[in-house]
């Protein structure tokens, strides 16, 4: 998995150049950008308090990242108290092992979108163990069927036009799906419906984890996360520890800023999950597994985040809410999409890549960033990409040894 520096530079470059040659990518992002800016500006006009709330959220994130370890303990204790099971994975390997043991093999899994699962290649791992895994987010499903990696954190298949979706769905679903978005959405719905019912396990990430109640927030519009986390008998959530927020009250603030800067006045669904489904309706005896899952497992993933939190500059990257707004403002992203990155995208993503995938993968991203700063203008929590890139480049020049043995150069 670890690439040499030369390979990492070459793969990154070739990915960007291939994307550059595919003019549809730039066109699709251009359209998405125009509509993002318009929707956001409408949403902010309707809820003008969001800007000040975003400043407050930055402070909440600063305070949370200061004390990840104590928040983690508090959250794990509360999840246990709620009759859920909480786990802590120090590394990606450990996270895969924990989930692998929970899942076993020959299971059918429906999965909502999760960047953290992408980070640790969880779907591939579970498939290798002999399980069937279905991505249920429409964009992720398209990519799964195409065997491609996401191009944007919120709109992963931003670069695939409806004609291509129709061809793909017709082939996979064994019936003619016309190149019309309404028909495509309904085809995906029909295709997945039975899979939710039959699934042994539902999986998801989380946008926020409230330490004081052990609650997970999953923000969505499609309703796929609601079904994935609600219908199967077992729910497994994979949560990066940077998602920890001290209180439920603060979590609502973080949630509102997250969806607002994702261009929504309000999303269709905010799922708040604090433990397994239960009822006390018969003789007041609490019984688990009523209509929802009988088991709730929460796997907290470190995979470099605690180390990142120790760096005075790079820790900023942990404040990211994953609203995706910055990407629409990045000129390089506008041309090559998610190929400007490796699992995590655009300039500030270089810090994430360094810790979760190693310095070799981070280097080409750090040296591709223009340091133009427009992403910072957009960012609700003002993640300072300019300083992150300077710091990353400084570490690449000098101090790279703190990331472990350098891979041989070519």
């Amino acid at each position, binding site marked *: 998995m670890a690439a040499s*520096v*030369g390979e990492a*530079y*070459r793969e990154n*470059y070739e990915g*960007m*150049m291939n994307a*550059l040659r595919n003019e549809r990518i730039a066109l699709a992002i251009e359209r998405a950008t125009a509509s993002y*800016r318009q929707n956001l500006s409408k949403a902010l006009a309707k809820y003008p308090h969001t800007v000040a709330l975003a400043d407050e959220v930055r402070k909440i994130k600063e305070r949370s990242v200061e004390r990840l370890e104590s928040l983690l303990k508090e959250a794990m204790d509360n999840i246990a108290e709620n009759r859920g099971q909480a786990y802590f994975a120090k590394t990606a390997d450990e996270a895969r092992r924990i989930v692998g043991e929970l899942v076993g093999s020959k299971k059918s899994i429906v999965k909502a979108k999760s960047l953290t699962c992408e980070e640790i290649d969880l779907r591939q791992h579970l498939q290798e163990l002999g399980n069937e895994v279905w991505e249920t987010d429409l964009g992720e499903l398209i990519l799964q069927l195409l065997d491609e990696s996401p191009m944007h954190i919120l709109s992963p298949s931003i670069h695939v036009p409806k004609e291509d979706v129709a061809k793909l769905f017709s082939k996979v679903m064994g019936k003619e799906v016309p190149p019309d978005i309404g028909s495509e959405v309904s085809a995906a719905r029909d295709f997945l419906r039975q899979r939710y019912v039959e699934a042994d396990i539902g999986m998801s990430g989380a946008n926020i984890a409230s330490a004081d109640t052990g609650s997970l927030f999953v923000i969505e519009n499609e309703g796929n996360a609601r079904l994935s986390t609600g219908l199967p008998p077992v729910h497994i959530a994979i949560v990066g520890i940077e998602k920890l927020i001290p209180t439920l009250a603060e979590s609502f603030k973080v949630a509102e800023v997250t969806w607002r800067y994702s261009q929504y006045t309000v999303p269709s669904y905010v799922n708040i999950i604090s433990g397994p489904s239960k009822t006390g309706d018969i003789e007041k005896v609490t019984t688990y597994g009523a209509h929802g899952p009988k088991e709730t497992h929460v796997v907290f993933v470190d995979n470099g985040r605690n180390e990142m939190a120790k760096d005075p500059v790079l820790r900023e990257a942990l404040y990211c809410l994953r609203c995706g707004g910055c990407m629409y*403002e990045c*000129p*390089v992203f*506008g*041309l*090559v999409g998610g190929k400007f990155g490796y699992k995590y995208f655009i300039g500030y993503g270089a810090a994430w890549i360094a810790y979760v995938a190693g*310095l*070799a993968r981070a*280097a*080409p991203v*750090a*040296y*591709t960033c*223009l*340091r*133009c*700063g*427009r992403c*910072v*203008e957009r960012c609700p929590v003002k993640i300072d990409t*300019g300083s992150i890139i*300077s710091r*990353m*480049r*400084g*570490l*690449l*020049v*000098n101090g*790279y040894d703190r990331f472990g043995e*350098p*891979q*041989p*150069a*070519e």
Partner: protein
Amino acid sequence: MDLKSPYLPKVLPIMVDNMRRSSNPLGISGGKLSSWADGLDLANKGETLLYTGCEYQLIPYVLTLVDQIKKMGPFGYEGGALVSVATGLRKLGLDAATAFASLTAKDEDYYNNITRTYAKVLRKHGVEFAYLSEEEPYSGALLYEFGLMEEFAEHANKVSRLFKERKVRKVIVTSPHALEAFRVLYPKFVQGFDVEALHFTEALLRSKENVRMALRDPLEVTLHDPCHLARTLDMAEEPREILSRVKNLTFKEVPYSNKRWTTCCGAPIEILLPSLSEPLAARRVQELASSGAGTALTLCAFCLANLRKAGSGGALKVIDFGELLDSALEAK
């Protein structure tokens, strides 16, 4: 220090070598970079300096260099030609005359003249300044940009010592990168750095003289805000204020991507990734053209060069802010 890190793009150590040899990243002699001032009789001593950072003057060399770097592959990183081209590039610092043989006189004249226009406009406005001529050092901004912090600190201290020796109190700067270096970075890297740095536009707006500026023919212009000027230094209004004083000029704003929302021209990765830098510039030229103006102005040597290259042959003319003001002074 050594630059043995395996993670670095290969062109960086070459630039550092050049900086050591001749105080600018391409290793060009100070005499060549100051020839633009010939015949202007600028003082070379004074408390206030015009500081060009050698940037416009270096552009013709950068353009030639980028063509050679393209042969090295992405980030100067791979390709069989790496060693030979790298060796060749190392020689640039020692033997610029041969290495830059393909340099066109036309480019050299054009970019030299831009620095000249800035000096002329300041003079017309009664601003007094001296120029360090062949001793003027590069600011070192590129070293900081690429993460070469120790080299930047060393260079910044060298520049600061020179300013002190020459009793410089104030510099009028024509480059956003140099201005950012003096205002934001030097105070962090040089103990007690107290030279006041003004942008050219600020110096002009502070001048007391009421100079008539008018274009001979009506012209519609738009502005490409350089990222570091408009965002880092928060200086988007100054150039617009000056343009509003130019008669016969109609200003047209680029939709959306103006001022703090300006789009980068792609120049920061011109040396590392020319194949990505070029389409970025082409996109920005399209955005600028969507203003409806036929002429786009900018105030940064690197923006200018990158946008001109992308705009050549197209309908949009890209020129420098200094050029425009100079022509507004000459017209009667």
